[in-house]
């Protein structure tokens, strides 16, 4: 079930704003905010390396050293290239309260899946992470989905998922999680490219003026 909650070193952030946040990041720290439970939001800093390790381990809940609070990682902001984290949102939680988190759906038995072995068949997984609602102390690490018996043109929907006890989702039960289909053959080389390049799209503004003149 859920991980041991990692303890994060924190420090209060006295000065806010992009200039000071940039200096913190350069020093290997992360600006973060803690809010929730009707208390005032607190601006804090985290150790960047420690927090990234938490994310890699798939942790959802963390404990803040010094403050003695248990928090849920609510949001993580990345830079424009997605290479580094620039800000973290943490929300205070009681372990007994219900929270909404995203949990990865992990496929099992892909090697033995008969449908995926068919010529031209593609196993598609439109939903990679599922938003679930559960108690904070019972957040599942992942939802394992067995696809070893999935045939071509078959799909597994949200309704077919076996969620752990106490875990529910509000997604549409008919949404497809995994499906196998045979892809229509795509043209490898651009046929009739010359014609396509010379063709022009319809211009809406011209059509309107023609209608008005009529």
């Amino acid at each position, binding site marked *: 079930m859920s991980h041991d909650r990692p303890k994060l070193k924190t420090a209060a952030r006295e000065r806010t704003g992009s200039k000071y946040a940039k200096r913190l990041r350069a020093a290997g720290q992360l600006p973060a905010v803690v809010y929730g439970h009707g208390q005032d939001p607190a601006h804090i800093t985290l150790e960047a390396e420690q927090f990234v390790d938490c994310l890699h381990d798939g942790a959802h809940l963390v404990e803040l050293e010094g403050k003695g609070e248990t928090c849920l990682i609510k949001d993580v902001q990345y830079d424009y290239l*997605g290479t580094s984290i620039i800000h973290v949102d943490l929300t205070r939680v009681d372990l007994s309260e219900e929270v909404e988190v995203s949990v990865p759906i992990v496929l099992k038995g892909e090697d033995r899946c008969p449908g995926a072995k068919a010529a031209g068949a593609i196993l598609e997984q439109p939903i990679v992470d599922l938003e679930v609602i559960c108690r904070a102390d019972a957040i599942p690490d992942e939802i394992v989905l067995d696809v070893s018996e999935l045939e071509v043109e078959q799909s597994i929907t949200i309704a077919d998922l076996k969620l752990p006890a106490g875990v529910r989702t509000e997604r549409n039960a008919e949404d497809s999680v995994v499906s196998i289909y045979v*892809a229509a053959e795509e043209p490898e080389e*651009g046929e009739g490219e010359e014609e396509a390049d010379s063709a022009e799209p319809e211009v809406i503004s011209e059509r309107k003026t023609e209608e008005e003149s009529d």
Partner: protein
Amino acid sequence: MAMMPKRVKYRKQMRGRMKGNATRGNYVAFGEFGLQCLDSAWLSARQIEAGRVAATHFLRRQGKIYIRVFPDKPISKKPLETRMGKGKADTEYWAAVVKPGTILFEIAGVPENLAKEALARIAHKMPFKCRLVTRRHTV
């Protein structure tokens, strides 16, 4: 067949400026691996098509390729040996305006080594530096 819009509001557009970085379309959303642009540029419909063909040919109908950019900007060009003036020239080709961070292509349903090789082949067809990226962590 090269991509272009079916309908447009105006036949020609001003060139514009490519300032800043991508703030949308800058993470892997559909596949498992993606190709991220590191420069700003006009990416022509032919270049997008060349990338798609290179990856499709390499993957031989395995997996699924997502194209995350669409060439919706008409680029005009005066014919050779034409004097200046006489109005804006006709549309020569269609291009997508990409900024640093934009995800151009995504691949799903193939092993990592195949996806990396396919994206590397696409990167060779691109007129700027690109890099391979993977899906972000779930929070």
